[in-house]
């Protein structure tokens, strides 16, 4: 059997294995992570209304920060929520710097204080995923940032509750509550 080309072997490795290679000093492996995540990060930045050059610069900054801090990544956990957490911090900090939506990006939120019953992940309030995605695309700018981000991560980035909780550093039950309230807000916006 012929030897598999090196690039093919590299592409078969999962993100966590690639990250371990980067931790060992393999810069070229980091290129692979950048290639895999650039479309996702660009899309994610767009949801925060970072478009064009500003969006590109921010995404590059996310990758630079990921590289600088890669040794803090625990390879026994998933890489995806780890890099999304960096992106979340970068985008939120930029929003604060621009002083826009300041009232929507608070340091402390009452939602994280009190316990909530965890809503079922499959619960969709009678609205299917495609419909929510369509409504979300059209009403993103009208949604409060607090509800917009969990909805974007859940419906566009295919994250589960635990991953969203890890990205936003909020309780898992709060993710369910924000998704539920976000969907209700979306419906209200659409019907108005």
């Amino acid at each position: 059997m012929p030897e598999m080309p090196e690039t093919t072997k590299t592409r078969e490795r999962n993100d966590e294995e690639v990250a371990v290679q980067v931790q060992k000093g393999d810069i070229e492996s980091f290129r692979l992570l950048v290639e895999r995540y650039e479309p996702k990060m660009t899309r994610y930045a767009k949801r925060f209304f970072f478009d064009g050059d500003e969006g590109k610069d921010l995404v590059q900054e996310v990758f630079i920060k990921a590289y600088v801090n890669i040794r803090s990544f625990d390879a026994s956990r998933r890489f995806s929520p780890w890099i999304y957490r960096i992106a979340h911090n970068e985008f939120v900090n930029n929003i604060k710097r621009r002083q826009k939506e300041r009232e929507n990006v608070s340091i402390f939120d009452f939602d994280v204080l009190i316990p909530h019953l965890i809503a079922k992940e499959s619960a969709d309030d009678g609205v299917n995923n495609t419909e929510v995605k369509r409504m979300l695309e059209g009403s993103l700018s009208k949604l409060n940032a607090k509800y917009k981000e969990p909805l974007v991560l859940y419906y566009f980035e295919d994250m589960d509750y635990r991953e969203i909780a890890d990205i936003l550093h909020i309780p898992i039950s709060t993710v369910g509550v924000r998704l539920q309230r976000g969907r209700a807000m979306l419906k209200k916006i659409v019907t108005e």
Partner: protein
Amino acid sequence: MESGDKVINTIKSGGAKMRPRAYFIVRSALAIIGAVAVFFVVLFLTTFIIFALQENGGIFATNFGPGGWEIFFESLPWTILALSIALLLILWVLLRRYAIVYHQPLLYTLLILVVVVSITAIFLLPGTSLQGGIFHYVSKSYIPVVTGVYEFDTAPMSGVYRGQVLVLATSSFILVNGRGQTSTVLLVPMASPEIGGLSPGDYVLIFGRGVATATIQASGVEKIVDYQ
């Protein structure tokens, strides 16, 4: 890919350097040391709160109905309590980088911390003479602020009297307080403990009505440890 090349070029040109693992280990260690230090400060303050409630009688007052609860709330060292809660919030801030903490609502985390600190303090207090030792020391030597915090005797609450049993009679005894003033304590029926449980020289807290230098109608008597 353009972006990938830019990022890789920045890294290769030395524009971004990977932080060593030691950096993250030290940072985590400092956060943990900070959290442990804050935990012990909260623990110390909690042992103080329990000790203060024992010394000023607040903890025993709850046995005497609604009036007793009023004494209990009056006797709580509110400033220390507020400081402890503020430190618990700081502890949460130090620990919230860990998934086990941020996955839980803040209220749960605070409740767990309060329970852990309280249980540790309750079990720790009888085993150490730390608070008693400090109380004994500051009652003999003046230390700014600290002496004021440990003054349980000089600012007695209404309805609570503290002192040493001097002479015992059938249903009364003579009490001498920390300032050398004496008073006659008359025990109303149901007072706890009964007079038979007291001996001259015992340190007691009296719950009742009267004048510290005359007669006190006691509805409750609690023996306490004297650290002074």
